[in-house]
């Protein structure tokens, strides 16, 4: 009998490999991949909520449920009968304790597991790529403004130049051409030599500045601010796809205007009325002080409930057109949770005028988190189609 007991209790050859791979983990990964596909398919709805944005991190976490592999099941009855064991008399009534966990069973059977939630982490860059793909958003054109940024590029040849720029192949061709004529000198002469030439060329501005201007007057609720924040967040992501360096500036205003850093900006709340021109003037002031419109692309996004004071209309109009003259695009989102006034407000009118005047501008009424994607789509489509604010100078 003993020789038959070859592998009794002894780890077999295969056993040494058991620790090295895991089929369970492989199928788990496939499950997670499927969840990701499902999340990706429903991305706009899932992450439109304001909670996904965690300050500055490059990933978002999305809570998801485990997928279920469906089988035919009977409808859940109103009253379910079962068998139990323990100290209980007929007529006893008690409330359900936590669901009993069945023991690990073989085969089909006890699959009534409790609910488990997964937190999946997504890279924001991936999400933005998927979104732009899914929503068929246009890629923005980096505008060549009256750019002062220049670069040297290689252009043409000359008979004179620095030794380091000697083009040997070209020079040799010249030699061969010349030697074809009867009686020509067989060796190189100065006339054969060709030097590469450089020329200056204008570079499209690869730098962008985005101004986010938020109305924090008393009429803007927390929810309004959160809506604006969500919208701003995705705008930044979209613009980042286009510009290698993107600066964001935050301006808040009531009847006065202040510049903020990002964390404070979304916390700030003010009281009092709304005078949009103060904010716009602040933006203009920052542009003049720190940026040269010829060297960078300027964007302005303004979020407000639209209740600008009537007496400010003229000032706001002139301040806005002063910015629009230099900006690639100016956008206005009207956040008015509950009231859907569809841009028929003071501020709404200002931007409508601007757009009518042929400037690159757009407006959108943002009433709910579901509208955020509509807004992003609206602005990016409008921006891509906007008339070039300045024709590129011919070199």
């Amino acid at each position, binding site marked *: 009998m003993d020789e038959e007991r070859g592998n009794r209790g002894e780890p077999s050859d295969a056993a040494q490999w058991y620790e090295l791979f895991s089929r369970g983990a492989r199928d788990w990964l496939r499950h997670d991949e499927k969840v990701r596909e499902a999340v990706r398919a429903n991305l706009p709805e899932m992450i439109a909520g304001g909670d996904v944005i965690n300050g500055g991190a490059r990933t978002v976490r999305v809570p998801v449920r485990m997928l279920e592999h469906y089988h*035919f099941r009977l409808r859940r009855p109103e009253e379910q*009968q079962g068998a139990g064991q323990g100290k*209980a008399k007929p007529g006893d009534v008690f*409330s359900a304790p936590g669901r009993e966990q069945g023991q690990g069973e*073989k085969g089909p059977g006890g699959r009534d597991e409790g609910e488990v939630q997964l937190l999946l982490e997504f890279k924001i860059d991936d999400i933005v790529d998927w979104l732009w793909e899914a929503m068929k958003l246009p890629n923005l054109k980096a505008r060549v403004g009256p750019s002062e940024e220049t670069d040297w590029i290689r252009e043409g040849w000359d008979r004179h130049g620095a030794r380091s720029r000697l083009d040997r192949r070209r020079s040799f061709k010249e030699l061969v051409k010349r030697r074809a004529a009867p009686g020509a000198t067989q060796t190189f002469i100065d006339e054969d030599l060709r030097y590469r030439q450089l020329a200056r060329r204008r570079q499209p501005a690869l730098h962008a500045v985005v101004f986010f201007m938020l109305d924090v007057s008393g009429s803007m609720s927390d929810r309004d601010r959160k809506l604006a924040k969500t919208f701003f967040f995705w705008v930044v992501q979209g613009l980042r796809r286009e510009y290698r360096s993107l600066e964001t500036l935050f301006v808040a205003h009531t009847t006065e205007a202040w510049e903020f850093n990002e964390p404070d900006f979304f916390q700030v709340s003010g009281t009092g009325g709304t005078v949009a021109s103060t904010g716009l003037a602040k933006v203009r002031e920052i542009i003049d002080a720190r940026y040269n419109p010829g060297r960078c692309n300027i964007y302005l996004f303004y979020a407000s409930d639209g209740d600008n004071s009537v007496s400010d209309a003229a000032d706001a109009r002139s301040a806005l057109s002063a910015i629009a003259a230099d900006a690639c695009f100016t956008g206005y989102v009207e956040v008015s949770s509950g009231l859907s006034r569809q841009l028929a407000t003071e501020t709404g009118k200002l931007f409508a005028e601007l757009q009518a005047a042929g400037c690159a501008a757009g407006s959108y009424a943002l009433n709910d988190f579901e509208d955020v994607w509509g807004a992003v789509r609206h602005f990016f489509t409008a921006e891509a189609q906007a008339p070039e604010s300045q024709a590129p100078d011919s070199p």
Partner: protein
Amino acid sequence: MSEGWQSYVRRIEELAARSGLEFHRVDFEAVPDSFMMEIAVYGLPVRMPHWSFGVRYIYQLIQRHMGHSRLFEVVFPGNPGHAYLAASNGLAENILVTAHVLGHADFARNNLLFRRCQEQVSEHIVEHAANHARQIQQAIETHGAQRVEAALDAALALEQHVDVDQPLRRERYPEFLVDPKVLVEDQFRKRFAALEPLAGGSAIEVKKRAPLPPHPERDLLWFVANYAPEMESWERDIFLAVREESFYFYPVFATQIMNEGWASYWHARLLREADFIPQQAYLDAIKCHSDVVRPVAAETQVALSINPYHLGFAMWEKIVEKNGLPAARAIMQQDDDFSFVRNQLTRELADELGLFRYSARSDGQIKVLEQDLTALHEAVLAPKYNFGAPIVCASHVRNDGTLELTHDSSVDGRGLDLERSRKVLDYLQRVWRRPIVLTTVNQAGSALELTAP
């Protein structure tokens, strides 16, 4: 693997054989806990890949981290049988587990349901399942992961819908009716025959095509694999592979109370009778035994489910005590859980164990119902009817290839969960490739049709 355990294996085997157990040789193998867990998740040591196993794996991991489940052994019937023991078992646990495994081996060799299914599947299910896994891996390489996954989604969703009363390698239906009743001698045929005596009336052989299927077919895996209008051969192979594994799982599922009870009865008895086991190991093993067969979790007074180890163990103790071992062995051979519980779970035993029936309302209120032995039997068995699945039959294939499925709500007592059923139809539609119609009943009990696409 603990030292010294191996010296006990043979002595336990001899003791078991003396006690009347008949079993094929069992190969024991110690494997890491992670591997034990995978066996529990897949049901077989090597099985086809599918993401739904990944879901079970996550739940299993969570349960293990919460300390809910500990697996000592998994045994696969066959000749020889394979038993996998957790490498973390101590000596006492391994002694107990060895005796337990021999109980299973005896059961698997002698129980008629097990034997019939093993005759179909062969005694080498472990190797067959590994072959299926390899075959599916090849299909993935040839046809791509997505297409294979679609076929597996459908096949595994129907894994309970097999008919183990039919042979595993089952013939297709006869294509023509054997005795077409339309050709009985009627007036017309008589006169026709009289007109021309040479033609001889019944000499014209008229065949009539049999309806498809000729009767409602509950073996959906087999039916789809054989009659899907546009299925590819590798997809059929996947359906048949899943079906074969279901044939193996069915007796495990349908005799769980008996089988676990029988193994628990024998490990307790062999341990009692084994005078060669040191005192301390014996005590540890008995402690382990009482953890396994305890009726309810230690901290609760009332359990809303029944531990099959406990119920089976208690029933076998009673049967052997009252009727003797030969009678118990006869029951073990001939019964499955349905006949076992209905015939052997008596009023006294149910009272002794404190079994009760309850009804749970959707708001979480639970009411203990009055005593009724027959109803109690059915409450214990309810989750086991029809492999734990609703009765759904293929009832007709229309001329355009549309598959009609019918849910037998009169037996199941209520209609299907519509949302899940729709998803299953979606899975199935991707391999059937023609429309599918499923008839069930709604809340009010009137007929309802689900269609895909």
